[in-house]
């Protein structure tokens, strides 16, 4: 039963609360880039991807790789809400603690339902290409989605992979860039400008779309367009707001990699009610 936009928005709000609470409990982590990616993950895990959380290794499943692995909290919350057995909802608050399955960055040793361990930036797109090539060789309908950060796009390997994805005509791979404009040291434009980003993807041979990364309907439409595009992969440049949903975190470089205090968690939860 497909979910309505209102239902998806409700899930998104719940996930935002979980992100803030788990990072607050961990006293470290990356809230800004987790909050900016919420709608995209909700659209993937609760609407568009062909997945069955009861059968996480179903060979024909669609796959998602979080190349910007520091946004692990949004992935953990989405997978927990989706009902994967190895991502228990009631343990989200053990994030980053010794023995927790919720490692600082996604780790398949702890959560086998994850598609890949990530965290070293610039590598997820290459992993996705390997999965896309394997699916094509096996004649499987499986599609692979990979989310990159905007700062991550400064890594040279991203462009090695971009070249290879177009060369191999991997129309079963979709790259999504969470273009929230902020990286650890500050605003992307001040650290190492990546604009014009969509032009770069286009020039590398990717079908390229620019969307509002918080508009669920627009995200779904982009995934549909990607699936209808044959003979080349699709890049979705999703314009987002770092820290989206929590006023004092929005567009604030401080909350790239700083956990909210207990008081800030309280304040954030009031806004996210």
């Amino acid at each position, binding site marked *: 039963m497909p979910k309505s936009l209102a239902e998806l928005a409700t899930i998104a709000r719940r996930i935002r609360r979980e992100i803030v609470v788990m990072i607050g409990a961990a006293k470290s982590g990356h809230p800004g880039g987790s909050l900016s990616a919420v709608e995209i993950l909700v659209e993937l895990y609760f609407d568009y991807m062909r997945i069955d959380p009861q059968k996480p290794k179903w*060979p024909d499943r669609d796959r998602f790789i979080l190349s910007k692995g520091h946004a692990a909290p949004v992935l953990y919350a989405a997978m927990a809400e989706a009902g994967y057995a190895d991502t228990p909802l009631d343990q989200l608050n053990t994030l980053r603690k010794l023995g927790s399955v919720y490692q600082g960055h996604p*780790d*398949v*040793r702890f959560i086998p339902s994850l*598609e*890949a*361990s*990530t*965290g*070293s930036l610039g*590598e997820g797109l*290459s*992993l*996705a*290409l*390997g*999965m*896309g*090539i*394997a*699916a094509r*060789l*096996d004649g499987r309908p499986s599609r692979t989605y990979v989310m990159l950060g905007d700062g991550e796009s400064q890594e*040279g*390997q991203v462009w*090695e*992979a971009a*070249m*290879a994805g177009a*060369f*191999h005509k991997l129309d079963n791979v979709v790259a999504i860039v969470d273009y929230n404009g902020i990286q650890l040291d500050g605003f992307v434009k001040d650290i190492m400008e990546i604009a014009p980003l969509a032009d770069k993807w286009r020039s590398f041979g990717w079908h390229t779309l620019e969307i509002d990364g918080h508009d669920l309907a627009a995200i779904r439409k982009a995934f549909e367009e990607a699936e209808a595009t044959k003979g080349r992969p699709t890049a979705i440049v999703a314009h987002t707001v770092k820290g989206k949903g929590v006023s004092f975190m929005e567009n604030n470089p401080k909350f790239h990699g700083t956990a909210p205090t207990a008081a800030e968690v309280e304040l954030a939860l009031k806004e996210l009610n």
Partner: protein
Amino acid sequence: MAAKTRFEVKLGPATREAFGRALVELGRENKDVVVCDADLSKSTMTTYFAKEFPERFISLGIAEANMAAVGAGLAYAGKIPFIASFSAFAMNKGFEQLRACAAYPQVNLKVVGTHSGISIGEDGPSQMSVEEIGLACSLAGFVVIAPADEASTKALVRAAAAYVGPVFIRTGRPKAPVIYNGDQKFEIGKAIEVVAGQDVAIVASGLLVAEAILAAETLEGEGVRARVIDMHTVKPIDRETIRHAATETGAIVVAEEHLVDAGLGVRVAQVVAETAPCPMEFVGIQNTYAESGQPEELMDKYGLVARDVAAAVRKVVARKKQ
């Protein structure tokens, strides 16, 4: 191999050639075997696989970091990927990707470096790899193999494909002396005593196995009976064979075409220190980079021939008597 008949250096195919042929056999047997190359297939010999299985040969251009992670992605999706390039690029340029995408999640990726060591010859140091055994061994969970000849390479490439987990295989450019006849069995992690001896043990890998055998024959004339061990698997290393050698001979020489700082020698020394400490000497490349030249000239100049192994043996035997 029996040590009774005198060892004659008979050049067989290069270990990279043996790798390329073994890949084709594997490709015929298992459709999940796929191969990635970075514009060196005519040199790494993955070209044979590419000709027979073009759909399973993935050209990735001169982009080794991407290749390492694409290979890992293929492995995550159930394939048995072999990624190949010169060792200097496959391991050194892909190192971080191999660490993050293959070692730490323990994916079933096979990395094959060709043109290892300085015996590539004329191309010179930028293409020579003298540190990749150390790099590969520092990837937790990786199996690291450095075969000596055609037969061992073919068998160990097959063993690597059958093993589930990340593997690095080091092969070379020049024709390799034949060490083994067709009967020898090879097992990952199980060293082979190619010459029996009780006075000293020479632990060698790759092209240095043949040099060690030649050195042992010279030494026999001097009344020194040297045991020669082909340590084709550097990791996991065969601790029992090393412990026996140290206990029974009381003196060990390690010989390899690699920087002594981070290769087979330090790994053997660790086991010797932990099990049966004894005098040791190390034949290898000494804190330098080589140069252009013919392979045999370079091996001679940089101290990697039988003469150098024999000299190290004399030295270690003298220390043993002190």
